[in-house]
């Protein structure tokens, strides 16, 4: 029985598309896993919004530095060649187009590249945006890693986002458990299917028109 890609496989597949030497910002959740699957012979430099380039893996618990955390407020380490800076410099890197790739999770992504990943817009919900709107507007390439559908089976790849946007027309490519999907001028287009997954299944689980792989 085919089940598509695991979270790890989605992350590994995304990592394949990131060139050597890229400056990369990874969102919370599955995107964080990308750092575990850097292809042989490549090196990425990780940026974290709260003021570091050269973020390394989490430390052993006894080696934690309480003053060294990432944007997800998890303890991390610094690799040789790291640098610390304040928030205005950090977001200059983001907004100024200096970061090559940002990999984000999402709630919805639309055929025109719109992304909605910060709020359901439900009444009474506490809005919290963090750095998401800066990232989607500033980083050169926005990649999304997400399950193809919600837990209840609703499409996350949709014609138009129903949730409030994080940013319009910013997503380049989507890595789901079922496929790698590009956002093109003609809308969604599958560029690769997960092993054992049919285009028909992807088409059926996508909320709008999607083009088959060539």
């Amino acid at each position, binding site marked *: 029985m085919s089940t598509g890609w695991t979270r790890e496989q989605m992350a590994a597949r995304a990592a394949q598309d990131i060139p050597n030497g890229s400056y990369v910002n990874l969102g919370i959740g599955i995107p964080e896993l990308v750092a575990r699957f850097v292809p042989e012979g490549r090196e990425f430099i990780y940026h*974290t*919004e*709260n*003021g*570091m380039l050269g973020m390394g893996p989490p430390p052993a618990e006894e080696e934690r*530095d*309480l*003053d*060294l*955390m*990432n*944007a997800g*407020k998890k303890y991390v380490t*610094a690799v040789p060649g790291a640098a*610390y*800076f*304040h*928030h*205005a410099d*950090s*977001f200059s890197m*983001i*907004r100024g187009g200096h970061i090559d790739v940002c990999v984000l999770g999402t709630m919805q992504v639309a055929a025109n590249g*719109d992304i909605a990943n910060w709020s359901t*817009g439900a009444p*009474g919900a*506490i*809005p*919290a*945006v*963090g*750095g*998401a*709107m*800066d990232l989607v*507007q*500033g980083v050169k390439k926005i990649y999304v890693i997400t399950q193809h559908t919600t837990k209840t089976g609703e499409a996350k790849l949709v014609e138009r986002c129903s949730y*409030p*946007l*994080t*940013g*319009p*027309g910013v997503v380049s490519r989507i890595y789901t458990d079922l496929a790698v999907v590009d956002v093109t001028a003609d809308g969604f287009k599958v560029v690769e299917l997960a092993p054992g997954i049919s285009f028909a299944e992807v088409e059926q689980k996508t909320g709008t028109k999607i083009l088959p792989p060539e």
Partner: protein
Amino acid sequence: MINKQYSSVSAAITDIPDGATVMIGGFGASGSPIELIHALIDHGAKDLTVINNNTGNGEVGLAALIGNRQVRKMICSFPRSSQSKVFPELYQAGKIELELVPQGTLAERIRAAGAGIPAFYTPTTVGTVLAEGKESREFDGREYVMEAWLPADFALVKCEIADPLGNLVYNKTARNFNPLMCMAATTTIVQTKRLVAAGDIDPEVVITPGIFVNRVVEVPKPVHEDTLIAAGRSYP
């Protein structure tokens, strides 16, 4: 000799009045000036507008200040926390105001206030509900929104090493918003882990030059929010 040193956190914050706008440094627990915040709780100033990236953790520091009902309005980018219910409960009960500002815009608005720039344009929020009601404008064919500077009456800041002139050095990612807030407040109050003599900090490595600092108080063994929370502590 110019000496900005204060003898205690309470002496350093005692003139913060009701209704003041107060910036508080830190990103989550990292770089948060807990001792100054707790002194502000003891002091009791009310009706504050507080600027911080978050809304505090557990029931200590900023969360405790909010829980003590001293804050009328929060200006922040991420008011949710997995470790605190203080802000969410007050917010949902309509007892505290929120101005939500994207993190990069928050940082840049604070810097702008310190740099004498009353407004600037940014692509952040374009095409979203957070741009509603804001002026927008095209440059080179791309749309941007105008954002205003964000000054404050006071800034509460934490650093690693300070000298009596107010030159500051931070520790790792505890730097975050602290240097920007030093620039943007009328009165900047700093707690430092270590106070050294003028000249002991290499002029090349000073992150906040003393011109941005008004008061320095040494807190040699600052507590850390995460440690307090792990120990189940609350304040007062």
